[in-house]
């Protein structure tokens, strides 16, 4: 196929992405070599792509990365993701970043640099749209001088940064839409560990493994907020009620405030959390547009509290997906199923148990009755390795009752997931 234009070949090589594959393909003929040198816009050096990288010395890796990058021109997307490398030398990293400075739009880099390189200072800022950094330190952000006018997505994992610098960095990105913080090491100047971020363009925020006294997020346009594995005393979202997607997973927080206006909420997903029902109810009861609700492995602050279907049916008439997994105890089973309102729009029901018992099948049945247009039922169960006779019997009984139940609900597609 000599007819393919050299730019198109460059595009194919860019989709090939993995450096080793690109080098091999470019060795086929002169035209492909030129395509690699002049029309390659994306390249990736990733230990996931090729296991041989893991056997190479760090110096050898630095040399081959330098050699390969320096043969290209106009590189737009550079990924250097090496899991087993302890650190790259500062001079090598600086060389890579300086070489690609004018054209770089995406940088993915996860190796510690020795001595530490001020990546924000050196990498191309003017066209950068995606910055994904891990295992590096960020110091001395100067928003007047360092601006990232095109940056849309910022991801920092295991990055050491001060609360002030984080705040300044976000404000240096006038178009930022996505922010991801994973296990940051937030250096604090005073006793209270608190982070304050403000951006009117942020749409999606993901925070994992952070431990703070206070986290204040001011984001007038936010749509998705996801907190995972965090320990916070005080979390406050200040916005204009634009939140659509709210997820909390394994978070401990004493004061949680997502604002007064919750009418735009479409998905609420809470897992591994202790819910104070009255407060929670107050928070989401006005979310009449809610489409998906998931309360998984949740516990209630007050033991007598329970998620009652009547409340769910009346507060969320547009609900299509309902997922519930919590301890269904004898006293609360009937209370949770009381009332007669239907969940008119629920098409997918996911129910889970931690400890299998007879009550669970009763609960499943009770819920099925209330979902007139249900299409899919997924049962999640935890099965212990060493199964006692008692447990085996329970499982058998459960299976029997499920089969009988499904015979009566032939429109529903059942699925089982055990772990």
């Amino acid at each position, binding site marked *: *196929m*000599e*007819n*393919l*234009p050299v730019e*198109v070949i460059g*595009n*194919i*090589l*860019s*989709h*090939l*992405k*993995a*450096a*080793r*594959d690109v*080098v*091999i*393909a470019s*060795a*086929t*003929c*002169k*035209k*492909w*070599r030129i395509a690699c040198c002049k029309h390659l816009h994306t390249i990736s050096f990733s230990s996931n792509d090729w296991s*041989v990288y893991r056997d*190479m010395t760090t110096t*050898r890796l630095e040399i*081959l990365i330098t*050699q*390969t990058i320096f043969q290209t021109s106009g590189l737009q997307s550079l990924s250097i993701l090496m899991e087993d490398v302890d650190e790259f030398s500062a001079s090598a990293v600086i060389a890579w970043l300086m070489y690609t400075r004018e054209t770089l739009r995406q940088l993915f880099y996860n190796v510690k640099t020795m001595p530490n390189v001020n990546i924000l200072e050196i990498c191309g800022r003017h066209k950068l749209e995606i910055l994904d950094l891990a295992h590096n330190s960020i110091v001395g952000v100067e928003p007047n001088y360092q601006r990232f006018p095109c940056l849309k997505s910022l991801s920092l994992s295991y990055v050491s940064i001060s609360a002030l610098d984080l705040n300044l960095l976000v404000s240096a990105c006038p178009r930022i839409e996505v922010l991801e913080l994973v296990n940051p090491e937030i250096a604090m100047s005073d006793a209270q560990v608190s982070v304050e971020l403000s951006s009117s363009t942020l749409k999606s925020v993901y925070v994992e493994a952070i431990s703070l006294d206070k986290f204040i997020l001011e984001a007038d346009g936010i749509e998705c907020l996801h907190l995972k594995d965090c320990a916070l005393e005080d979390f406050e979202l200040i916005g204009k009620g634009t939140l659509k997607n709210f997820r909390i997973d394994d978070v401990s927080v004493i004061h949680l405030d997502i604002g007064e206006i919750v009418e735009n909420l479409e998905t609420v997903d809470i897992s591994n959390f202790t819910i104070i029902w009255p407060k929670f109810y107050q928070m989401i009861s006005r979310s009449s547009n809610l489409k998906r609700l998931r309360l998984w492995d949740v516990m209630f602050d007050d033991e007598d509290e329970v998620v009652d279907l009547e409340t769910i049916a009346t507060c969320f008439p547009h609900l299509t997906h309902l997922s519930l997994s919590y301890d269904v105890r004898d006293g609360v089973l009937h209370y949770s199923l009381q009332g007669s309102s239907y969940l008119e729009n629920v098409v997918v029901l996911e129910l889970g148990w931690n400890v299998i018992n007879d009550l669970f099948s009763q609960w499943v049945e009770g819920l099925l009755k209330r979902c007139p247009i249900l299409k899919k039922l997924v049962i999640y169960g935890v099965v212990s390795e060493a199964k006692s006779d008692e447990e085996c019997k329970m499982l058998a009984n459960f299976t029997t009752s499920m089969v009988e139940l499904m015979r009566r609900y032939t429109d529903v597609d059942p699925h089982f997931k055990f772990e």
Partner: protein
Amino acid sequence: MAEEKSQASSSKMLTLKASDGVLFEVELNIAKEMKTVQAYIDDCEDIETIPIPNVLGKHLAIVIEYIKKTNEEYDAEFEKQWNMDDLQLLLLAANYLNISGLQECLCKAIAKRIENKSPEYVRKVFNIENDHSPEEEAKLRKEYKWAFEGVDKD
């Protein structure tokens, strides 16, 4: 006002004539996805039949169907139906007609098929003639020794 306009333009039909003479009647908004065709229309407003000299009827049909149906699911399944020759001809067509979505989809598909392969395999697949001299070839292989280690026998 905007709605009327789009209704009017979507009902207008255009004829595309492939290199082997096969004619395709398409709606204007479909044809506009081909930037080359769009440019043609911009230049000569009253045109009704646009010649597409570089693309066979067989491939133009596939391209038009892609434009109509493209979405994540369709794209994922799309490339599986074609052999390497067709993929390349479709890519040439998408390139000539300037349809960026289809170009990306096809480049991605072709790249997938040459992942982890030797230069000889890639040459075979693309019908490439190795125009490196033996010295140049040896130099390349030496320079990029690291990449040529442990190449699979395909």
